[in-house]
């Protein structure tokens, strides 16, 4: 079961990497978050930890519903071109993503000398998600893509935390969720401002400050 969930996480990440337009990207993020929710629920039932149920709930409320909703709202409100603005086209992005997957695998095999293949692959997938998030941030011009990239990275970390150390301490986890939510709100606020001042949200064109 875990394997299937992990595979869907991976698949949703690939989906995001090849997304060309914002709704697709947000949808990908939603899938991914949902998968993580399922994963956490599964783990919670397995370990019988009440903490994990709460965390899973938060995950569902924040990352599956609220944040994507907010993002959709922003897209609607600012009425800009929905293109992400790709530095690297989807095909090549996919290629990169595969390379990153491989690299993550190597990295996690080096990091953990463990015979448990599932642990290693979970680790690899977590690292891959972090990398994919960073990749999204670097290779997409839109400010929203950067927010989503950041969220993807965060998802990766969540996965990592729950695989390697069985999750962070409870209140830290809560604080992190809160933090992520606040940061999305604040970033959204800045996206509005950027749109207002520049009439676009293409951060690649934000280059007044040099040197």
């Amino acid at each position, binding site marked *: 079961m875990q394997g299937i969930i992990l595979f869907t996480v991976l698949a949703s990440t690939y989906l995001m990497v090849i997304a060309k337009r914002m709704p697709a990207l947000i949808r990908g993020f939603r899938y991914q978050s949902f998968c993580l929710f399922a994963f956490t629920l599964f783990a919670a039932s397995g370990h019988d930890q009440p903490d994990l149920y709460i965390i899973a709930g938060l995950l569902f409320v924040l990352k599956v519903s609220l944040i994507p909703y907010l993002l959709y709202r922003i897209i609607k409100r600012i009425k800009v071109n929905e293109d992400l603005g790709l530095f690297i086209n989807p095909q090549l992005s996919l290629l990169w993503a595969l390379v990153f997957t491989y690299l993550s695998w190597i990295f996690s095999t080096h990091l953990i000398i463990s015979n448990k293949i599932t642990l290693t692959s979970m680790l690899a997938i977590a690292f891959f998600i972090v990398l994919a998030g*960073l990749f999204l941030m670097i290779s997409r011009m839109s400010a929203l893509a950067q927010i989503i990239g950041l969220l993807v990275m965060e998802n990766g970390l969540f996965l990592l935390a729950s695989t390697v150390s069985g999750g*962070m301490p409870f209140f830290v986890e809560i604080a992190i969720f809160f933090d992520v939510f606040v*940061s999305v709100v604040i970033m959204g606020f800045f996206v509005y401002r950027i749109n207002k001042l520049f009439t676009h949200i293409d951060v690649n064109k934000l280059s007044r*400050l040099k040197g």
Partner: protein
Amino acid sequence: MEIFFILGIPVLLAISTFFMRKQRVFGIINCIGYLAVLFAGVSLFKGIISTGSAKAFLGFLYLDFLSAFFIFVISVVAFAVALYSIGYIRRDVGQGVISEKKAGVYYLLFNLFCFSMFMVPAVNNLGMLWVAIEMTTLISAFLVGFYNSKESVEAAWKYIIICSVGIIFALLGTILFSYAFSISGLSKSLNWSDIVPVAHILDKDILKVAFIFILVGYGTKAGLAPMHTWLPDAHSQAVAPISALLSGVLLKTAVYAILRFGMIIIKSMGFAYFAHLMILFGIISLAISSGFILVQKDLKRLLAYSSIEHIGIISIGFGLGAPLAIAGALLHVFNHAVTKSLMFFGAGNIVSVYKKHNMNAIRGVVKAMPFTGIMVLLGMFALTGFPPFSIFISEIMILTAAFTNGSYVMAALLLFFLSVIFGAFVYHFGKMLFGNLPKGMVVSGEPLSGKLAFLFLFSLICGLGIALPFIKKDLLWIAQRLLQG
């Protein structure tokens, strides 16, 4: 317990901004509040020196020398900034740059910002440490984008994105730390006070990787090159008093975080690994900042790059590891905080009078604003390490340790870059401070609170340089304690 004052007063002040309508009055109340915080910070520091570490609030807060020291530094700068803000915000309101209401927002954000920074050294849990640092980013992003101009919003965006990415890596590192902790068969905890005693039994390879993530992550926030890119943008666009806070203490809180993890690393595998990384980043920061300082045109960006330089020096100091170097680096944290705050205040005054950031267009500051001009002049020499000012002492301590360690190449590089930076500073500031006023320049008075803030900081800059030989014992003792964890 002073720590409750320190954390409580900013919160109270933040809440009270909703009820205060007059920014003038509030500015003064704010300042008095931070004076109280300053006293609390000093007495906390003193208390910790005599009693050693302390836990508070169900072990949620943990205070030892290091955290008390950083809290002290933050409280000093926060007080100076509160003092300076009175005049600065009043002038901004008077000139119609911001509205009365926005001034209230400023004070709200300022207090939240200070609260989050005070949290950083106070918390025990490494995860909470991360949360606190991320909070500082989120709050200060508003202060960076405060003026809502194209540049400031751009700077705020870059700031928030780059720092968030960096800090996510720091979280990754933290998770790996906790992983190392969990595979060693101990109960799940991220409390620093739990991890340190068992640091030596943790898996070294994982710690190594984890520390790289920590260093890159918090290093981004600390402004270590080449992750420093957000720093000049944010510092140059923030409200002047906030620039002082950003440069003076925000960066240091990130350094604090690095140190916390560094101490675990040192305990676990000795000094070399930590030292090499810190020195590497220190030198890169120095090299890059020296180049940028040399060809810089924007006054506040210049100061921002100088912060990168000093963070580099601090990181070299910690990297060298001898008690003298550690003491020097700690002192440097304080010295740089006060000196750089002074410089940013000066820059704030200059920019608000000349309405320009471009140093080529600013001439004759000493004539236009004698007090600020002279303070900036002296501050410039203080910043570049001239005696009798305090930075000289800390730099010399670090250099001495470098030579005593036998790392001649590093020391030579350090001296070289310091000289280049000094030259660049004199080159830029000499022209800016002296010379004849531009035509049509109206000379206006300087606000009293600004002058007081200058005097407060300047007395610390000078006083420390002179008083240092007499506090030597405590200082080295602290450094020694620090190394032992």
